[in-house]
């Protein structure tokens, strides 16, 4: 287990925890995308590129798109931006 992999794994944990901590749904979905990307990189380092490609295409791609569409449907994105403006 190389140092690189270990760092990636730690990143993974950080992403997962911050997903559940972040108040803003858009942010948490961003973090989930990062999670999937890191996961695909880990799989590439684990000598299984099939999984890497698939995860990158699905987890980071289609799933996140579906998440965003859902957020738009439930009127979370607009409100979320408003909140951020309010924070500023």
């Amino acid at each position: 287990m190389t140092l690189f992999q270990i760092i990636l794994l730690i990143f993974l944990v950080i992403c997962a925890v911050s997903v559940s901590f972040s108040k803003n749904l858009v942010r948490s979905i961003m973090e989930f995308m990062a999670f999937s990307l890191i996961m695909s990189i880990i799989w590439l380092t684990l000598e299984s590129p099939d999984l890497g490609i698939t995860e990158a295409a699905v987890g980071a791609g289609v799933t996140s798109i579906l998440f965003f569409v859902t957020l738009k449907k439930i009127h979370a994105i607009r409100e979320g931006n408003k909140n951020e403006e309010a924070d500023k």
Partner: protein
Amino acid sequence: MKKLTNKLLNWLNAEDTSVFDNAMELKMQEPKEEKEETVEQRMRDRLHIKDEVYSESETKEVKVLRIIYRTLAIILCAFIAYNLLIAVSWLPRTGEFDKPVNNEVSARYIEKGLQETGAVNIVTGMILDYRAFDTFGESNVLNIATITVLILLRRNKKKLPNEIEEKENDRLLEPKNDVILQKAATFLVPAIFLFGIYVILNGHLSPGGGFSGGAIIGAGLILYVSAFGFEKTEKFFTEKTQKVISLSALLFYCLAKSYSFFTGANELESHIPLGKAGAILSSGLILPLNICVGLVVAVTMYTFYCMFRKGEF
């Protein structure tokens, strides 16, 4: 540090997305999006519910129940984590060769896989030839997921749809001419398609395969739609297209696999040439099956997107 602990506590009590403090997804639509009286009605409901939740009468039991539930859940999670970690600590070491996992099964896949399936990519050969039944079930999972999404989000044309569905339809927002997006899409979409087709066709030679390629093509379609709007795609992709493509692909899959299962089980000789290893047209059924899976996946992804966006094709 203190902030962190607070955050942790919040997380444990799940107060971060509580109903009533600034949780954005619980705000209601703008009044202009719906009739006044419905808004007032819902406001009244909301206030009423608020009273119900936080009125002195109910607060205690509700809170107690929540606390009990939370504590139980946390205890459960901690218990599971502890056990799993202990179990992991007893498992065979990662990355070493002499483990029960590396037994005659994987050995045969690796050593005879090329001759028996004709696939250079052993993983593809395994999932599409050795353990094809699982993969068949998997594509059926996709199929049935599509069915459920259709059931849920499909707008039925018979009875006139209610105003919420009307407003949910994103076709109202079109056309949106985003020049940058369209320019980028004109370059990107063909490349994405080509890449996806390459991945599908070389599924048995190189990493990837039907599923990833299909997902890539689906993503390309989605990008195309979001750049150029729906009326472009509605020209070539309708409900009929989806039905025909997925039906034919799955049907071919079903029949081909049934044929090979049947011949295999009854010790008949299946007349499917394996071809020369390494060529595109090789490895028997794997290439067409890859294509089928790719088609199904691409269509499914695009169907998901359409359904989510506007509830129709």
